[in-house]
């Protein structure tokens, strides 16, 4: 009888151990994916930071072109670049997205910009960068969601707490301002 109990408990222990190791490895795998996903977003955000001075330089010659918005973009950019915490950075990046969206919306109303080859190339760069950020964000949020499910689900949450895995924050962008841009001709 004792032998049977010993054998069963050793068996259960072995199963638990195997489950623990497998889950731990899965968690590590997901964490690496999250890190990769974040670094892909980071690359695109840096790309956008590099484009902004270029943008200001290109459009500053155009009369009355959203001077206020341009100043705000530059401010948000320096805020994002100097942000210490993830929260602050996301807030600043969200601000940039909203402002750039506003600029793109009024862009077509300026014939000077439409006919200028540099401005058109720059517009294409800004559009593709926004799209890449959106796509990378979608991918990052997918992998974060997988990771968080495993971290919080029973019984893998025990492995997660032993291995000091904690749930990740999603990359969210605050809803851009809904107000229509005011254009004067």
């Amino acid at each position, binding site marked *: 009888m004792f032998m049977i109990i010993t054998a069963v408990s050793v068996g259960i222990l072995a199963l638990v151990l195997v489950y623990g190791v497998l889950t731990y490895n899965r968690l590590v795998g997901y964490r690496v994916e999250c890190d990769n*996903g974040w670094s*892909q977003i980071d690359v*695109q955000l840096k790309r956008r930071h590099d484009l902004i001075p270029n943008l200001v330089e290109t459009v500053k010659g155009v009369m009355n072109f959203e001077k206020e918005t341009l100043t705000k973009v530059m401010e948000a950019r320096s805020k994002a670049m100097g942000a210490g915490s993830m929260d602050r950075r996301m807030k600043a990046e969200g601000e940039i997205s909203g402002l750039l969206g506003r600029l793109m919306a009024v862009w077509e109303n300026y014939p000077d910009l439409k006919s200028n*080859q540099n401005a058109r*190339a720059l517009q*294409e*760069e800004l*559009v*593709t960068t926004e*799209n*890449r950020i959106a*796509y*990378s964000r*979608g*991918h990052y949020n997918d992998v974060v969601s997988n990771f968080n499910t495993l971290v919080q689900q029973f019984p893998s949450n025990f492995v997660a707490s032993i291995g000091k895995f904690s749930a990740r924050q999603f990359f969210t962008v605050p809803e851009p301002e809904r107000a229509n841009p005011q254009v004067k001709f």
Partner: protein
Amino acid sequence: MLHPLPAETVFEARARAKRNTVLLFALLGLIYMGLFGLMGSAAHFIIASEVKRRSVPDFSLLVFSCSAAAGLILSVFQIISARGKNLDELLSAIQTVPADPKDAYHKVFLNLVAEAEAATNIRPIRPVIIPSPGSNAFSVEGAGGQTAIGVTEGLLVHLNRAELSAVLAHEAAHLANGDSRLMTIAVALLQSFEVVQNTASKGRIRGRAALISVVVMILSAVGSFVARILAMAISRQRELVADSHGVQMCKDPLALAQALHKISEGYRGSISVPQEFGSAFILNPAMSAFDEEEGILPDLLATHPPVAARLEGLLRWAKAELKTVVENTKIPVAKIIGNQPQAAGQKFFVYQEGDWKGPWTEDQILPMNLIKPSTWICPEGSQEVVQALEHPALGRRLTAGASDKGKHLCPRCMIGLGAKTYEGANIRHCGACGGHLLEKGVMERLVARRDETFRQEAVAKAKAWRSSATHDLQKSCLFPAIQCPLCRGPMAKVFHSDLTAVTVDRCVNSACGAIWCDAGELETIQILVENAAG
């Protein structure tokens, strides 16, 4: 199953098409094993009937399963040999060229591929171009998971950014779902039957062996026919998966509907690619009569679902009507602008063939191809005679934009060629004679693009050219052979194409392959090609 896309959401459609793929593959596998089993059993039966008196059973499960297993092993070999092809081989079979980051149209394409990379997390996806004015797009995966997405020059011209983005999302979805691999397996099964059929037809043609080979041939013929139908059905399901997955990515079903409509209605053209690549494209490049017809045979044999059915589903998701798509995709009417007004300004006399001619204005002289930099000219109202290059205003015009002075010289005038952007491509031109130098592959882009509007006189000249019979023997006699400005090799006079019958100079060095067009030739080629295409 044969009538795709009933009323359902994007997610449901994608899940259903995936389920259908699994079912079709299971069916294909069963039929495959069954037919190989039957072949073995038939052979066994024929041999057994010869030695009838012994107690050999008519049907043996062992023989059946052994031959089914043999068929399986054959298919594994087929799959391995098909998957060994690397990406470079595949791309050279489709005859693609790399995209040029300095070209405005190609730059947008490169950006879109980078967006597809971000969306699928497949890195890297190699962007390639098919130098054809037709419209199509494809994706392939080679050995080791190397992937590529390709588009034709025509597609980049005729679709707007949103439409291109939707097409690329469709292709990226193919890559993310591993459709290239799936189709390789389906086709490998199909080809196993063909291998058996070929082997059997080469066998001995006497006695029992002949009977066996006939039976095997019949069975494998049936097998390859059924397998082809199933493979095509799988291909159609994968298109539906890619349509719905692509829409999930780009979130713009209307743009994909417009793209499909544009390609199928106006700008499809046909591209010559090997038949086995047909299912890699967004619309079948061979454009068979089956594609758009309804009925049993078209339903069974087409690689892609009919465009009308695909549009129906996309429009439901977009909550739009076909009317909107047709309205949004109207083919713009080619614009021709009026003749240049007579410009006022300083006039010049030009010394030609021992006589002073003119006077003409700057704008008149340059297109006439009258002066070289060394030609003597005399401004009207002055007695001063100078060489054209030395006159401040004319000289500036002759060397306009000559950024690489002394590096690449005009083969006719021997002055520096200027760089300019023409229809999104970077080309070089000579300010003096009006000739253009196109690097390899650029001509294919320019004849596909429609940015440039032509003057009436140029259009009239091109039409006159087409109707004249004495196609350019004169030029070969008058103009001496020239050296390639890029690689200094010799250039040969060739017809641009039978269609235009314009003689251009092409560098004989195939790695360089630059084309020199004398004044007016590029315009004539463009007008003739674009007229014929539109």
